[in-house]
């Protein structure tokens, strides 16, 4: 059947209970990886096929290409039209979709166990024999660019996309994976084919399966449907974004009753050291709902906003941090000042009590992060994409327990930059009304 190399078995012990969750990993001779976790709860299967080329591989001016390519795969093969593909899948009640993230492109499916063979066969055909029909391409291109343009009616989406553009400049992390309507309209069918030829290869692909299936027959099926796919050289994008000093701001005028505030800077990538302390630090700062410091100051004490947040978004070659809130126009300056104050304050450290609570949260919450097939499939994807050791789950509890107050302070000093930030405000406000020193306003 052509299976080679690795065979791992993981089952982990957590909070002194044996967790009945095993992940196995195999790979075909052509390099295709299979990660699977058989489970017997309900007779369904959750499936993901991941190709390790996401939107950071989009060429300049063609933001959204990786997303368009993976969505084109479901729009027709050498043997079936797009309509036929969806009809076959949906007739049996299964679901099939495709999309890109920053790091990878993905086809995902969920089906009843009895239909797994058919779904694997269809996905194998879409991946290896796409037709890239020109008419289908033009239709999909128009559909996606209209989807993006219509989302630009949402002030939150406007702010988020503007923030990335302001922060990342020319770096390909400057756009959401679906791109902008203008960049999607720049893409040609030739770009689509080139991207596919460059990145789609078995040695750049992993299949993740979770659910009720027989593992021997699944291995046999994956071998049958994917064994003839030929290995090829693929390249890896590895230029990190560059840090810019100073404060930059952008105001996007919209006739809405609130100011949507986004303030942040570059953040750690997957490989950055001391991620766990940074995560705990953010939990205390703005990641823990109503009990976080930001929520406490902005929402609970002053009633200035409903939604207050901060988070790190991490990718293979970079990342960012955002803190934000939406507040009525008159409270805009107060909310921004409170956010900056809290960024400064947390660099002075957190209390023992705050740290203990955050640790308890992460340890107690860990089993809840994969209590469904879908979440397990996401967890396995994370292990594969972030190159985590497969025994990551075993170590998690210790990694969290070992974090010290000193490490929290260090991570705040290292990863938060209250003097060098990008600020986007969407709302009915002028830059003269923003009372902040030393901001360079960008149009």
């Amino acid at each position, binding site marked *: 059947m052509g299976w080679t190399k690795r065979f791992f078995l993981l089952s982990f012990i957590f909070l002194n209970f044996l967790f009945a969750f095993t992940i196995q990993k195999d790979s075909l001779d052509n390099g295709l990886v299979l990660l699977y976790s058989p489970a017997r709860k309900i007779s369904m299967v959750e499936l993901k096929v991941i190709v390790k080329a996401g939107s950071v591989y989009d060429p300049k001016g063609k933001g959204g290409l990786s997303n368009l390519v993976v969505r084109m795969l479901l729009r027709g093969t050498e043997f079936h039209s797009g*309509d036929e593909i969806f*009809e076959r899948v949906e007739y049996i009640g299964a679901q099939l979709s495709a999309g890109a993230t920053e790091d990878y492109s993905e086809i995902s499916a969920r089906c009843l166990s009895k239909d797994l063979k058919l779904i694997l066969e269809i996905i194998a055909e879409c991946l290896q024999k796409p037709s890239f029909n020109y008419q289908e391409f033009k239709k999909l291109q*128009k559909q996606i660019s209209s989807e993006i343009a219509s989302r630009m009616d949402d002030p939150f989406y406007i702010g988020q996309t503007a923030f990335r553009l302001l922060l990342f400049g020319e770096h390909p992390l400057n756009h959401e994976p679906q791109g902008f309507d203008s960049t999607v309209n720049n893409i040609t069918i030739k770009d689509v084919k080139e991207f596919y030829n460059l990145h789609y290869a078995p040695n750049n692909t992993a299949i993740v399966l979770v659910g009720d299936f027989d593992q021997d027959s699944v291995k046999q099926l994956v071998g049958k449907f994917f064994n003839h796919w030929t290995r090829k050289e693929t390249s890896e994008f590895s230029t990190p974004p560059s840090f810019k000093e100073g404060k930059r701001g952008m105001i996007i005028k919209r006739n809405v009753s609130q100011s949507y505030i986004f303030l942040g800077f570059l953040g750690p990538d997957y490989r950055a050291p001391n991620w766990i302390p940074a995560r705990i630090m953010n939990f205390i700062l703005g990641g823990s709902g109503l009990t976080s410091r930001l929520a406490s100051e902005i929402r609970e004490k002053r009633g200035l906003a409903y939604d207050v947040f901060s988070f790190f978004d991490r990718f293979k070659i970079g990342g960012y941090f955002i803190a934000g809130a*939406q507040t009525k126009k008159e409270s805009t300056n107060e909310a921004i000042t409170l956010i900056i104050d809290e960024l400064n304050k947390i660099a002075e450290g957190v209390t023992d009590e705050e740290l203990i609570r955050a640790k308890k949260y992460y340890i107690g919450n860990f089993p809840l992060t994969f209590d469904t097939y879908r979440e397990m499939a996401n967890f396995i994807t994370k292990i594969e994409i972030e190159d985590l050791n497969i025994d990551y789950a075993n170590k998690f509890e210790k990694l969290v327990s070992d974090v010290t107050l000193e490490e929290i302070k260090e991570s705040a000093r290292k990863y938060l930059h209250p003097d060098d930030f990008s600020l986007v405000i969407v709302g009915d406000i002028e830059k003269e009304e923003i009372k902040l020193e030393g901001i360079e306003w960008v149009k």
Partner: protein
Amino acid sequence: MLLNILFLLTFEPINVTEETLKNGLKILIYEDHFAPVVSTQIHYRVGSYNEPSGLTGISHLLEHMAFKGTKRYGPKEYDRIIDEAGGEENAFTSTHQTVYWANLYKDRYELEIMLEADRMKNLLIAEKEFVPEKMVVMEERRLGENDPYGSLFETLDLVTYFYHPYRNPVIGFMTDLEKISRDDVYKWYKKYYNPANAIIVISGDVDKKEAIRLVARHFEKIKGKPLQEPEFTEPPQNGERRFTLYKEVNFPALVINFRTVKINHPDSYVLDVISKILSFGESSRFKRILIRQKSLAVDLDAYSSVSKYDGTFSIFGIPQSKVSIEKLEEEIYLEIERLKSGDITDKEIEKAKNQTLAQFVFRQDSPAGIGFTIGHWEILSGSWQNINLYPEKILDVKKEDIIRVSNQYFTEENRTVGYLMPRR
């Protein structure tokens, strides 16, 4: 037909254990031992439906105040306790329900039971906490208004229902929020939060006897007071209603509401099959024909919502750039006419049934999700057991039913149409 039979063989009903305490508190337990996680939920039988004019939004405001301190625990103490236990918690309010829930590791779900009992009898609703929290809710309302489609759906309900409380938004009108006092909220709490007006749903890795024992331990001493709920009936529509809203948007949007039936009505199952044929999945008529083949819409969805006393069948669409909203509306009606005239294949009907039944299985993947479904059906339809009747009712739907139901409800005089247009 063969495929349908296969489904019946694999279909397993949801098994729920039911128990009612002397004070009227109903306990529903669903065991799922896949992951060591338990979802504990309390569903109160109160929501925007119960709110008189002048007090719209009060149930939701109370939901916010329920996190602001009890006689035993200070403000935010609830969130802190659940955080430290590694739990996920939240609450939501809808037309007929106010729900508080927490998902926790299996050895500690009693915490949530204990905290909910405390919340049921000991809320303070202190003035000092009430003032900023009301401001938070007003910000939440502004957020909804700024969402491009928030006001469109709010207006749709107002025009669809002239009289029935289903016209009121769950978040409440801003002028009502401004006026509602701490005492109003406290009275609302005292009236509606008691064991006879609530259901506890526990779903996940539990032993049912143990779970019932724990609920009894914390709740049995609280006094129950059953409530009667008035039933309102909206008069028949007798004529098309239309409205247009203007906002700062680039893309117009379209909504259509047809008045239909309440939950448990035999036609509700037919309406579900119709919504699948029209818009579920990429091979559905709306996605395949109107979005992909004719490139008329960016987004187009149809869904049937049946509630306790009435229902609607809704269509929401965003036209492609350069396609007029009138053109999209016209094309939607052409698809509806095809249903009315019986232009439907057996394969389409079978597909819609297979999708409904597969969704029934998929939903069992999440213990919390199943818990919400159990509470929803118990409160809206009168019994969780209707969940298990659902697959058979769907399998019973025939082509003649689809033709009859389409002709009965999808008429000009029974519809409300709203346009969202870019401000001129």
